[in-house]
């Protein structure tokens, strides 16, 4: 554990209603996007969040920042409850929590100059203006590896990696405590990915940031994370210290995920035993009863089909939700 708890998420639930009807909207079903997620992120720590598309990673991020209203549950940031706060009360807190998005082409306003994009948060929060603002923005640009003269350029004049640097400069502008990075490198080429990951690690050290780092690339997550949480169909199925998770995964899903990643080494790749999951992820509209993974799990038994496993601690800080964890 690095520092004090900075972000505590407890039993967070986000359901999206599916409505039907012309005059009277009736709720006919719900998408169980996030279904009872709890975790703690400590100061200076990086928590990696992995899972396949549709498992609720991005919705979880948005619900933490109150960009979508949670259905129930609690999100405490620095000791303060965020769920239920008014927009006005949230505003000063938003300074402390910033987000970096996946798609550097869609997350920057194409009509604004880089100086505005990075400077607007400072101006909106009344932290700088005029010449001081420009100086601060140029410092930030310089810090993320861009040049001061990029101040007057538009986003389309930059490559994907450079745009992601602009996104990072914008996130850093308000000197937040927490940065939620939702797939920050998955749209980039590998050589550029490495640049951005290294930059994120440098600024974490420098500004004392905590990261919630969402990605589907398990190699990238292992590289940046102190702890890793694995999500499947709206639930966290395993949460552990990063090294323990990668060396001895307890949940069959984690096992299968790790085994599915092709290793860039032909001989090792050929030699290792692989678990291939059959089928697709079930629909979050009607998740399977019991353990949500039982439909694809080779170790599933009767109890898995009826009873939902709770997250239970195995080793120090290694929690897993499984009736038959892969121990020993």
């Amino acid at each position, binding site marked *: 554990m690095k520092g004090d708890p900075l972000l505590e998420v407890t039993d967070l639930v986000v359901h999206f209603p599916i409505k039907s009807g012309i005059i009277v909207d009736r709720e006919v079903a719900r998408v169980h996007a996030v279904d009872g997620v709890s975790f703690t992120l400590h100061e200076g720590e990086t928590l990696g969040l992995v899972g*396949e*598309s549709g498992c609720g990673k991005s919705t979880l991020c948005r619900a933490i920042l109150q960009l979508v209203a949670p259905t129930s549950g609690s999100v405490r940031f620095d000791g303060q409850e965020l769920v239920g706060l008014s927009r006005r009360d949230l505003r000063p807190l938003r300074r402390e929590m910033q987000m970096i998005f996946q798609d550097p082409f869609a997350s920057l306003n194409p009509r604004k100059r880089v100086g505005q994009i990075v400077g607007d948060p400072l101006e909106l929060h009344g932290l700088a203006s005029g010449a001081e603002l420009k100086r601060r923005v140029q410092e930030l640009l310089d810090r993320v590896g861009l040049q001061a003269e990029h101040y007057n350029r538009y986003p389309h004049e930059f*490559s*994907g*990696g*450079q745009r992601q640097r602009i996104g990072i400069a914008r996130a850093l502008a308000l000197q937040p405590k927490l940065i939620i990075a939702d797939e920050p490198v998955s749209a980039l*080429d*590998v*050589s*550029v*990915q*490495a*640049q951005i*990951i*290294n930059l994120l*690690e440098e600024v974490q050290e420098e500004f004392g940031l905590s990261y919630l780092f969402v990605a*589907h*690339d*398990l*190699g*990238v997550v*292992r*590289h940046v994370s102190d702890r890793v949480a694995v999500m499947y169909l709206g639930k966290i199925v395993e949460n552990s210290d990063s090294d323990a998770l*990668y060396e001895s995964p307890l949940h069959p899903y984690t096992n*299968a*995920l*790790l*085994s*599915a*990643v*092709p*290793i*860039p*080494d*032909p*001989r*090792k*790749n050929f030699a290792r035993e*692989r678990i*291939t*999951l*059959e089928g*697709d*992820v079930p629909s979050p509209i009607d998740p399977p009863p019991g353990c949500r993974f039982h439909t694809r799990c080779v170790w599933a038994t009767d109890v898995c089909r009826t009873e939902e496993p709770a997250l239970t601690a195995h080793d120090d800080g290694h929690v897993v939700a499984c009736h038959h964890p892969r121990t020993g």
Partner: protein
Amino acid sequence: MSPILTVRDLQVSFRTDDGVVHAVDGVSFEVSPGEVVAVVGESGSGKSVTAQTLIGLTRAPNSKITGSVMFEGADLIELPDDQFRAVRGEHIAMVFQDPMTSLNPVYRVGDQIAEMIRAHRDVSKAEALSRSVDLLRSVGIPNPERRVRDYPHEFSGGMRQRVMIAMALALDPEVLIADEPTTALDVTIQAQILRLLDNLNRDRNLSVVLITHDLGVVAELADRVVVMYGGQIVEDATLDEIFYNPQHPYTWGLLGSIARLDEPRPERLTQIVGQPPSLLNPPTGCRFAARCKYAFDKCTQPPALEARLGDATHLDRCWLTPAEKLESR
């Protein structure tokens, strides 16, 4: 074994408002029957344009294509459009990255496959449909009798990619060009599709040109690897040589910049500084020199793609001597 596909000095350029983009600049390689050749590179390296040219998709009023692509004694570059149509699908088929945008959303999946069969073969609609069912079954789609009547949106991403592969195989082609076939998929689904491609390659002796940026996928499937950078091939070697004896600094960079699961975590990832060159106005010397930490005065001259190790199957485009490379790597 004589190659089934021979690409010689392929040049593809496009006229744009900003000038002429030299997307592919002198690419030569061969594909043997039953061989999986991976073409690796970053965005803008020319790998996709190369793939699309093989199947005649870059023919356009603003493009200029020179060089040759020899397939069964014919030069595909010279082939008129109507004759190319007989080759495409029949002998060389393609699978694209994004299965959602490559299928027509308003037609049933079975009809789309049947249409393609009927365009090339003189069979009844019912026969073509029953052939579609067999094809869907052969790529591992459960309940194919029912699924042929479904629309593309009723399939998941992985299943859609299986449909695309089934369609590509409909006419029993000799060569399959797969352009980032698993990039849009989750890892567990990617593993399924890679296994399917591997089985097809073995069972049908299908030659595959695999376009990808993921060296993990390469390690899984390829026999030979062609590394592209800035519109040119910078290294061409067997799978083992690329991974265990790479000769080009760009290949080193690619291998080093992956966050790997199979090795201890490094403090920092090796990064390749800077950006790939603009293909509007490519550098005159070595195209990688500006980002290469081993660049020296000779790199202002363009190096040729040659067997510099004395091994005819391992080509690279770097001025360093093999001894210097061994030391720098």
